[in-house]
């Protein structure tokens, strides 16, 4: 019984500890939602294949803090992203914008697909033509007739 009570007490305490961690969320849910949304859109430049939301690098923490402060000032998503792009460049966006320097990145796969498709069609066409155009030699024609005769 005593042990059981102790366990309950410990469990309760862990709840208290968790509540402590989650406090910023309670302060202003709308801002936390915006911070969350933005930090999933932005790259952590220290560990480059993680978003700011995933990364625990000190810089990512600083940037999340910075974003939270900007959000609290009422800046829009676009304004905050522009602020970071001005400092860290387009690379900070997880989804690159479509513009002249990134056109190849966005359109390249489709261009490759198109080229592959055209190549395939051309290849199939030529193969078909080759098959159709090759006439039978006299010897082959005789053999075909012979085989067909045998069949019937």
């Amino acid at each position, binding site marked *: 019984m005593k042990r059981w009570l102790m366990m309950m007490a410990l469990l309760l305490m862990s709840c208290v500890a968790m509540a402590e961690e989650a406090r910023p969320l309670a302060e202003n849910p709308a801002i936390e939602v915006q911070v969350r949304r933005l930090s999933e859109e932005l790259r952590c430049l220290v560990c480059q294949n993680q978003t700011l939301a995933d990364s625990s690098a000190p810089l990512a923490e*600083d940037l999340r803090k910075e974003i939270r402060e900007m959000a609290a000032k009422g800046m829009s998503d676009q304004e905050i992203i522009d602020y970071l792009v001005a400092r860290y460049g387009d690379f900070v966006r997880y989804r690159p914008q479509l513009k002249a320097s990134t056109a190849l990145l966005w359109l390249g796969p489709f261009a490759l697909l198109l080229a592959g498709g055209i190549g395939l069609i051309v290849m199939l066409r030529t193969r078909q033509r080759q098959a159709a155009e090759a006439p039978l030699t006299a010897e082959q024609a005789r053999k075909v007739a012979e085989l067909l005769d045998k069949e019937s």
Partner: protein
Amino acid sequence: MKRFLLPLAVFFVLAGFLAVGLRLDPREVPSPLIGKPAPPFTLPRLDDPQQSFSPREMLGQVWLLNVWASWCGACREEHPLLLELSRSGAVPLYGMDYKDTREDATQWLKQGGGDPYRATAMDLDGRVGIDYGVYGVPETYLIDKAGIIRYKRIGPVTEQVLREKILPMVKELQAK
């Protein structure tokens, strides 16, 4: 025989792309700050917290701003070279100590064989670092007479970078 030519060509093109890709350093993100004015700041100095340093003081001169920290391993690597550069007097070198403490930074300079910087600004909370787009200490900025950032080096300055890139640019900018 001819039917193998196309796949072979495709293979070489692909291998070429991959070979170039291997040589690229993904950490070298082009800075959007090149050609833009160095973000202004006023920060206390490492040697004397009562005094401050601001890039405004450097207008009219070509200078280097080196972002460092005592917790940064690669900074130790470039330190001897910076000491040498500072002794040569080719270009004024200023430091920005990024997210560090005063004691650690002072200690670190002592252990490294001296202080190459004319002054070091203390960016304790990393705020100014964000304005400069700092993400991988050490970083070095070359700033011209008009206060425009002309070049940024991410990672330690090597002898080659200094000789082939930074010093020629310094000379060119100083002549202007």
